[in-house]
């Protein structure tokens, strides 16, 4: 299988890349890890006339946590996240999810920001970022803006990024109290898309109450789903089985799965329910240990 012909540029600075996108963004695609884009090009579902390879740009592969955010730069590979002590110290949901993204070979090239820009409804990272209230920094030649991930993804493989915009980092808010999180993924085999994925995030307040909660679902709707009703019932409640059960029920109701080779809609909805309860219980345990 071969992609259609395209022009290729590999700028060495971010400014050059943004200038090229300003000029030809309409028919260009940004190449980071390429682990989703190249397969689509080989199938000719994507036929950009220009590839802007950002891999030669220095300084986009940072993971740090300077002030209020865990920041993951545009060229951070999934396996960089797996290996990162900063991530392990900063955010349990991100740390849990990283080893479950695709397979070890893809994780050596694929990037977190690229995955978000690609907006595959079966992508794991969007759920993680939705649960944790993350935002992306999008840059273009004459501007910069931050977009909450909850507003970034507008549909299947669709974001609100303009053709001349590039995600330069994703930033996850630092925990504000004792917190925990998980990412549970059911997959048929390593490297397969999720049958169901569930990201959870909890911050505990005083007296065993829940101060903040995040839940997001992978592969059970046309896009990743932020289970807002389930989050709402958790905040202010006493952390424990009862409220987790209610959150599981509400999250399952927020899912809109389809029957496919990976399972029936009913089965997937049930897995959402179970995973939300399990994920929250583990998140609470981690948060409790940190309290």
């Amino acid at each position: 299988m071969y992609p259609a012909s395209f022009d290729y540029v590999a700028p060495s600075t971010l400014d050059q890349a943004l200038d090229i996108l300003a000029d030809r963004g309409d028919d260009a695609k940004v190449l980071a890890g390429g682990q989703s884009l190249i397969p689509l090009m080989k199938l000719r579902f994507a036929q950009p006339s220009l590839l802007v390879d950002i891999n030669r740009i220095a300084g986009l592969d940072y993971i740090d946590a300077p002030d209020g955010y865990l920041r993951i730069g545009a060229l951070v590979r999934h396996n960089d996240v797996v290996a990162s002590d900063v991530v392990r110290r900063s955010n349990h949901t991100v740390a849990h999810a990283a080893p479950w993204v695709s397979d070890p070979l893809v994780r050596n090239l694929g990037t977190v920001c690229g995955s978000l820009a690609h907006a595959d409804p079966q992508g794991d990272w969007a759920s993680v970022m939705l649960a944790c209230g993350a935002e992306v920094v999008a840059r273009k030649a004459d501007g910069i803006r931050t977009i909450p991930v909850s507003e970034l993804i507008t549909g299947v493989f669709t974001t609100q990024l303009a053709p001349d915009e590039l995600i330069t980092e994703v930033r996850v808010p630092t925990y504000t109290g004792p917190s925990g999180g998980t990412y549970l993924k059911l997959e048929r085999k390593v490297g397969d898309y999720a049958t169901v994925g569930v990201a959870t995030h909890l911050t505990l307040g005083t007296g065993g109450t829940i101060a903040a909660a995040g839940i997001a679902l992978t592969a059970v709707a046309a896009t990743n789903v932020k289970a807002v009703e389930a989050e709402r019932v958790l905040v202010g409640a006493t952390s424990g089985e009862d409220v987790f059960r209610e959150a599981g029920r509400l999250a399952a109701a927020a899912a809109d799965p389809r029957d496919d080779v990976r399972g029936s809609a009913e089965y997937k909805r049930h897995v959402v329910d179970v995973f939300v309860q399990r994920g929250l219980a583990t998140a609470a345990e981690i948060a409790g240990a940190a309290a």
Partner: protein
Amino acid sequence: MEITVTVNGVQHTADVEPRVLLADFLRRMLGLTGTHIGCDTTSCGVCTVLLDSKPVKSCTMFAVQADGRELTTVEGLKRDGALSSVQRGFKQEHGLQCGFCTPAMMLVGTALLETNPDPTEDEIRWAISGNLCRCTGYMNIVKAIKWAANERNVGEAVPEQRVVSVAEPQEVPAS
């Protein structure tokens, strides 16, 4: 466009169309057919090569992306004409049946032992989890990589006979 890539320590300069996949560049332009193409859909991992020592799928990368970088293919595993410990492990433990996934498995095993010289069985299984063996011969692939780890840890200078016994103690049946 013109690219220069170091493959198995040898520098190659070539003129390639941007859409040429790295796997095809290696196989057709450099004649290194040890890198196989299986599914061609980023699923099976038989096209694995080491890019700056990390295993990646060469069917999911363009040759132009490798410009200025170092690649290792299965042809580069031999050292001074002798098989590497991982290659010897595959021979010793019968880590192959049809051989189609073998170059990729050996490269992944080599990369694993560089970063984790004494992996557990779970760690080996995790490392090869992106590579399919169509003969389902995983048991011996895992043993082969373990054998190589043991041999490397004992030391390359140790005679092969003794290394084998270190890797897998033979039980003496009661007579």
